[in-house]
């Protein structure tokens, strides 16, 4: 399901006009991203947790050339599905 389909279905369910749904979704994502940027942990019940984690710098080796590279530290967004979501998808994922 791509973004268009997602918004279409969302507007249908909520009985919102398509344009308003788009706008609201944009606001939601802005809000999420600003919270995460501040380093906050976002917990959505029955869905999962978004958290920004710091990945340390490290040296990697290209196995074919043997070239070593220093990968800089970075902040990565991680998501961990809640047990409820995991349970639901375990069942339905095979279908």
């Amino acid at each position, binding site marked *: *399901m*791509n*973004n268009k389909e*997602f918004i279409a*279905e*969302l507007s249908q*369910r*909520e009985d*919102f006009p398509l344009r308003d749904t788009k*706008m*609201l*979704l*944009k*606001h*939601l*994502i*802005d*809000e*999420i*991203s*600003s*919270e*995460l*940027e501040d*380093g*906050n*942990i*976002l*917990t*959505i*019940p*029955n*869905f*999962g947790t978004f958290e920004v984690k710091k990945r340390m*710098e490290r*040296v990697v080796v290209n196995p074919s050339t043997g*070239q*070593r*590279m*220093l*990968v*800089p*530290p*970075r*902040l*990565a*967004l*991680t*998501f961990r*599905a809640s047990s409820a*979501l*995991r349970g*639901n*998808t*375990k*069942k*339905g*994922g*095979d*279908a």
Partner: protein
Amino acid sequence: MTTKRINMAELADGVAQRATIPVSYAEKFVQAVFDLIEEALVREKLVKVKGLGTFKLVDVEPRESVDVNTGERILLAAHSKVTFTPDATLRDTINRPFADFETVILNEGTPTEQMETTEGGLVQDEDNANMPISAGETNTEGLEEAIQMPHSEDVADVADDLQEIIDDTAKEIEENVAPIKEPQAVTSITEIASPDTVVETKDAESGAGHAVASQFMDEPSAHSNATESVVLDSAAPVNVAESVVLEPLAPANAQESVVSEPSAPAKGATTPNEEPIVTKETRNEPVYESKNTMIRHILLNTLAAILCMFIGYAMCYYFRPFELPTLTPAHQENAVEKARPATDNKTSTEAAKQTEDSIKAIKAEPSPAKNYPQLEGGDYEIVGVQGTEVMSPGKTLLNISLKYFKSTDFVPYICKLNGIENPDIVPLDKELQIPELKHK
């Protein structure tokens, strides 16, 4: 950046504020969004939300594992798990603090282990740089340990330990000289710490001078003057107590006498009294003992000399930007020369004061005439005319600049003052005014 846990209600509040809709609406909407993502995941295994990222259901093959509690082998069934890949825009937004870093290709032979150790070393250096006195403190702590070693006659052990401590701290301090703003403080620590170290070894040996040692340690070694007198004072009781005081004290005294001559005649009077005793007692010592101390003596002196050279150099470097070039060479050499033979911080502080004074004098020079053309972006401003120079064959702007400012860097100022557009063409017999410069 304090980490805070945000729940859905707070998220909805934020959305409501942004979109100026009732909170209840926003809550319903947020709930609907995540519900739909979950449903769509189950249905289609993949949901893309622009600006957020992609949620995906990935199949996991069945595999064997071991129950951590019972140790039994168990079979983990095949299942799906949710993965999330953040959108490129969101990923970059979050990584913004580190966005400037790039992957670096390491050249062959770059030892990574060393990099780690130098990092650690740097941290240490920083710590020491913030508190220059701490080096001295660790030194004395180490001494205390050494002294507390039972009064075994194992002099060699004690001496070796102390030598290590001295060397270590001296190295540390040497490394710290550059970052530290006031090198004088460091000098006072090393110099006072080093000779005394030796004194205290001997105290431990004789088992007499503990009081002296602690007396010294109580002094925070802040003002060089005060501490010097402590060194002298502590030396005196040691001698009276007829403990085996020894050669190493001699360099200490020698240094003191050199120093105290100009400033404190009273100290100068005490030193001669001590020196005879010292030398006399040295004679009683076994030969290997004096050899040992000789080596230490030489080591200490060379260390001190190196330190002083280093500090002199650091001071030159530190003061350079504030000085007019006319003053620089003479005073720098002065400072270095003074610091080297004297092997003491006092002379270097004096030299430093002199340089500071001269800088102040220059800065204070009152001639705030603003009616001269000023060079834009220059470090100096033209505040007057100090002389004139008539262009004759063989004269160049460069050697005029060199003559008046001891540097060829001031040609632009001469040009500016005399309205010379092209410094390569100066008419013969033109009378040039030499600017008087003041550092901005």
